[in-house]
């Protein structure tokens, strides 16, 4: 031994188990921070990528252009890319199909959301990219690199070489009009009000500070809102600072929990050795030397834990993601997910790790150095004065008999230790609750998901109906049999029928209307019969759809049998209107409950007769629409089963169409499994489509896949976050509860000596462990709730939605805390049971 400082190393070596536990704590914390950083960055990158995918990668745009504006922007010192985009006219093709050829230049192809499936982007005037599905409908059915002769809107016929094929878009397929982009440049495009200009700024330019000066150039200025928000560069500085607050809160919480874990480990290690430090003081160690011993321990631990943590954080993430990639879950649109290595994240985690360790070691070091040598040599054992409060509230634990009473005494006896232990549990639970809440919310914010995402194909029929009302009731375009066959195809998740949609009004009495909605949106409703007319979309759901609807059930039932009885319908009353302060917010439009009667009016009439009104019963309420758009703006969604729907339709005497369409299956929606091969399904569907005249197959498999992947990936991120946090929290609890028990070895020996059986001791210790879990969870949930609400307040500014109490997270956290508390006392107890009780007693305090 060269110096007294080597004692630190000796201690760590001797207390190998505890040192390893501490190192693991540090390691996990650093891993968490670095993984959080990396994932946060990846998440941000992905969200930005997604925003670019959807809306294009430009920052600013002008809906109108002029040569002057173009010249200014072109020479502008801050502008990086500048694209020109001009919307083309619709060119009709055979069979009601059409194509619109938009023109854009080289930068435009980069800035606009144009997604190649195959080939390349045009680089010359006669080159064009089109959507894949239209290829067959183009004159001469050209393939990729083929040539198509098209008659332009001005009447001239031009021949285009098809150099690239774009992803199919649902809207264009449904409308039968394909998007196409041709190359052009500033010399060729008229720079007038019909031409848009799009631009990005040079890297490193503070975007939101430039918004004002760019706005001055032309009033038609607009920004790519979503992209800028995700980049943290929105023109709304309050929004930016809100995002900053949210992220610093989360990072702060993680850092705090890291500090807490390490602090605990050190604090307990120091408490255990208070006497030793006192002894060192008696033989002449100065307080500074004691501090330096503790700090040296901290340095050794962090020197091992922090780099390992970085390695584990990085490779753990990399490993998980590569496994997911290998298992076919393609991350984003990329075949291999490149986890970008950011030095700032690694460096930041490194610094935070070390700083946290030193911060955490600081108080214990001070405590160790201020130990009174007298107290240590007196050998009184515990240095902390144990305070008994004599007046106390009875604890629930007392109900558990003598063991419970002992446990409750033990817990309350030592305030300092109690506080440390609870604190670490509280912080773990809080962390979990808050992160659970935040990730869930951001998941719903960044990915609005419902069953529509799964739809890969649609089969539409455009059967026409005679105007004179003489046409007979339509029959199903596809038989049940075919439906079943389709459903059994490999890779098909479910096949849904499409039916006509009714736009009935619902007459809502005042007490059922949400007053807040009226207040916040400023919308008003027409009053009929002293009731408010709220528009509704009424859908017919077959059994397959109802099955999916069950996932969104808030109350009531979706059982088709029950619905059929008594004209039951399912209601979606949550809407997402634009509020007066220009913000989207989620809220219910009405306040119906299960069992309420819904008065619907088939055909508008200012003073409807009783015959025109129908009554149905609300049998179930959903949180959001399972299909179509999840939330309407100001419309109720009413879902009915076939019998109810049929009754409504037959009662409706006015509309010819309604009657004719009836409850016929007009088309199909096909949802496929994630990662399924859509090729064979498509072939099958094409065959069916050929047998049905006037039908059209919409192929959105590629889009669907990308959306699903994006959502899936977000979920993976979120749940990996949560599991890491769960692990670190559990570890924290294990560490504190275990050491809390191990520190009292002598006392437990004493209890054994006075006749407590090991079983009683186990019950006592288990009760303590669980009780710590309960108390910790209680405060943790309370604190977590507060913080979640705080985050909600911030998030609400970004996008409005109601505050969901994080029940789920709270219950999970509470359960885990108690379970971990219970389990973590078992190992030390087993060890104690094996140890010789006399040895424990003899061992000096």
């Amino acid at each position: 031994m060269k110096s007294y400082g080597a004692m630190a190393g000796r201690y760590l070596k001797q207390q190998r188990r505890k040192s390893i536990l501490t190192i693991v704590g540090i390691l996990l914390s650093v891993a968490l921070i670095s993984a959080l950083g990396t994932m946060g960055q990846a998440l941000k990158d992905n969200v930005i990528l997604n925003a670019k995918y959807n809306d294009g990668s430009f920052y600013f745009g002008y809906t109108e252009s002029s040569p002057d504006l173009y010249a200014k922007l072109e020479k502008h010192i801050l502008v990086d890319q500048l694209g020109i985009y001009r919307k083309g006219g619709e060119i009709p093709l055979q069979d009601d199909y059409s194509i619109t050829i938009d023109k854009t230049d080289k930068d435009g192809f980069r800035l606009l959301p144009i997604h190649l499936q195959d080939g390349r982007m045009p680089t010359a005037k006669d080159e064009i990219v089109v959507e894949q599905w239209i290829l067959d409908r183009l004159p001469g059915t050209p393939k990729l690199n083929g040539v198509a002769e098209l008659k332009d809107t001005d009447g001239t016929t031009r021949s285009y070489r098809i150099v690239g094929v774009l992803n199919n878009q649902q809207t264009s397929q449904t409308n039968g009009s394909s998007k196409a982009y041709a190359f052009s440049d500033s010399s060729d495009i008229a720079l007038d009000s019909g031409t848009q200009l799009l631009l990005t700024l040079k890297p490193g330019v503070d975007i939101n500070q430039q918004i004002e000066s760019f706005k001055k150039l032309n009033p038609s200025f607009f920004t790519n809102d979503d992209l800028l928000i995700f980049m943290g560069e929105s023109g709304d500085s309050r929004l930016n600072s809100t995002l900053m607050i949210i992220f610093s809160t989360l990072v702060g919480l993680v850092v705090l929990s890291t500090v807490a874990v390490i602090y605990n480990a050190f604090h307990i290690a120091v408490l255990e050795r208070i006497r030793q430090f006192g002894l060192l003081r008696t033989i002449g160690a100065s307080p500074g030397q004691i501090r330096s011993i503790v700090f040296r321990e901290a340095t050794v631990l962090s020197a091992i834990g922090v780099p390992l943590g970085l390695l584990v954080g990085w490779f753990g993430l990399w490993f998980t993601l590569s496994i997911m990639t290998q298992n076919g879950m393609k991350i984003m649109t990329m075949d291999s997910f490149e986890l970008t290595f950011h030095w700032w994240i690694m460096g930041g985690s490194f610094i935070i790790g070390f700083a946290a360790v030193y911060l955490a070691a600081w108080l214990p070091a001070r405590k160790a150095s201020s130990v009174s040598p007298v107290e240590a040599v007196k050998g009184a054992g515990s240095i902390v004065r144990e305070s008994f409060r004599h007046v106390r509230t009875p604890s629930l634990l007392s109900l558990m008999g003598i063991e419970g009473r002992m446990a409750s005494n033990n817990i309350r006896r030592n305030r300092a230790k109690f506080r440390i232990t609870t604190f670490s549990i509280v912080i773990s639970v809080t962390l979990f609750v808050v992160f659970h809440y935040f990730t869930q919310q951001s998941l719903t914010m960044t990915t609005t998901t419902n069953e529509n995402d799964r739809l890969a194909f649609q089969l539409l029929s455009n059967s026409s109906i005679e105007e004179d009302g003489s046409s007979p009731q339509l029959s199903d375009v596809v038989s049940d049999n075919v439906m079943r066959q389709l459903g059994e195809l490999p890779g098909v998740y479910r096949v849904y029928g499409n039916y006509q949609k009714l736009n009935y009004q619902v007459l809502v009495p005042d007490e059922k209307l949400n007053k807040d909605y009226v207040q916040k949106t400023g919308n008003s409703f027409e009053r009929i019969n002293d009731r408010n007319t709220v528009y509704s979309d009424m859908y017919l759901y077959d059994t397959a759809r109802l099955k999916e609807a069950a996932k969104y059930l808030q109350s009531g039932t979706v059982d088709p049998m029950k619905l059929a009885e008594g004209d039951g319908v399912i209601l979606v009353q949550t809407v997402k209107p634009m509020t007066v302060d220009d913000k989207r917010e989620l809220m219910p439009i009405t306040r119906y409950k299960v069992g309420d009667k819904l008065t619907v009016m088939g055909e508008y009439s200012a003073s409807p007769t009783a015959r025109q009104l129908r009554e149905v019963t609300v049998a179930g309420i959903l949180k959001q629409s399972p299909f179509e758009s999840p939330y309407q703006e100001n419309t109720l969604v009413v879902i009915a089963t076939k019998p109810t729907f049929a009754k409504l339709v037959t009662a409706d005497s006015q509309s010819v169409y309604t009657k004719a369409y009836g409850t016929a299956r007009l088309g199909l929606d096909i949802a496929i499994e994630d990662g399924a091969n859509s090729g064979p399904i498509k072939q099958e569907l094409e065959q069916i489509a050929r047998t049905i005249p006037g039908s059209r197959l919409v192929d959105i498999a590629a889009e669907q896949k990308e959306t699903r992947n994006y959502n899936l990936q977000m979920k993976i991120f979120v749940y990996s976050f949560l599991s890491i946090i769960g692990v670190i929290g559990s570890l924290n609890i294990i560490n504190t509860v275990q050491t809390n028990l191990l520190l009292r070895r002598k006392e437990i020996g004493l209890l054994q000596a006075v006749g407590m059986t090991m079983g009683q001791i186990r019950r006592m210790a288990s009760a303590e462990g669980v009780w710590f879990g309960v108390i910790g969870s209680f405060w943790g949930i309370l604190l977590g709730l507060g913080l979640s609400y705080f985050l909600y307040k911030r998030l609400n500014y970004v996008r409005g939605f109601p505050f969901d109490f994080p029940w789920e997270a709270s219950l999970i956290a509470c359960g885990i805390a108690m379970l971990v508390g219970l389990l973590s006392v078992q190992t030390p107890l087993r060890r104690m049971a094996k140890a010789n009780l006399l040895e424990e007693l003899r061992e000096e305090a």
Partner: protein
Amino acid sequence: MERIEKSKLGMARLWRDPYIKKLVLLLVAAIFVAIALLWIYGLYSTERLKQSWLDKESAMIGSIASTRPELANEWVRLLSDSGQPTVQELESGRKLLEEYGITSELEARWLPAIEHYRSHTLWTLISGTVLGFAILAYFLLRHARRQLFDIRNLAVALDDTVKHNQPMKFRIYGEGELGLLANGVQELSLRLKETIGQLNQDKDFMKETVADISHQLKTPLASLMIYIDLLREGNIDSQHSKEFLDTCKRELDRMEWLTLTLLKIARLEADALEMSLKSASLLATVTSAIETIQRLAAEKGITIEIEHSDESLSLYQDSHWLAEAIANVLKNAVEHSPEKSRITVTWERTPVFIRLRIIDRGFGIEEQHLPHIFKKFYRVSGGGHGVGLGLPLSKSIVERHGGMLTAAPNPKGGTIMTMTLPLNPLPIESPLTNL
């Protein structure tokens, strides 16, 4: 003696010194302040340069635009073009400017904007540097002064100690080199004092010994003188003269023993005698001691026995001297024992010591004498006929073996003398204190 690490003054060691620590902190703080100030100044001066450069450019564009608007457009394009100018562009531009006398050799002061920047920068930097150094120098000097102040105090205190034999007044209980120096100096002064004390003690001891010898020799010398006078006068009968001569012989023997023993003690206590410590059998030493005393014991019919002892035990010892010490204790025991009694010699080994006990069953020594029996010439009243030098000699010898000699009453009557001899004597400090 532990060392203050010799010439090595490693970083860790350097860092422990409080002065170095302060110095380093000072320098680090200075560096950070300098970096911060330079950073701020850099930002500020770039902003200024940019402003004046832009002003210049704007003025040019303005004047050109009023006459040649198309040129102004081109100018703006070039202005925002971040690419490197081509060699050709640079070359042709330079040629053009050269015609107006504007070359890179041109002194900066003819270009107003740059001249402004230069003078501004120059003065700010010079004054800043001077100020910075001045502040740093102030702190460094203050720092050095404090250190010198400590050293001076130490020097003054040391001077006082040396010249006036006072205890060190200025003490530093600190870490670092100065602390160690101060500690060393203080140790030195304490040692010095101790040594002086010891020297005085030795002087006293010498005086005492001389007085003892003269006192002890005076009486027998006087009686010898008388006997010799009487014998010389010759009027003594042969029987008496033989008696006188026997008495003289006895007195002379006693005086010889006395002087020899005193000399031995003096040499032992003055460290003038080398012990040759060798590992040797304790049994042999004890046996040889018993042999020398056997005759005396036999006279009184006393038996000396060795009891319950590990006979194979060996010890680092000078067996000659240790035998003498044991013999002296035995002699004392024999003298204090009644006739036909038993004296037991027994020893045991503990982890640290060998404890040798000599147990007699005599009259014992009264409590009040116990603290004094190892003093020279102390004689328990009446009892025995020794001069009281045997036990002090034994004690000196045992102490030279790093051990102790103690006496305690035997609960069964008599006395137990215990020699506690360490298996390995405590390490000896520097010889200074053992003068």
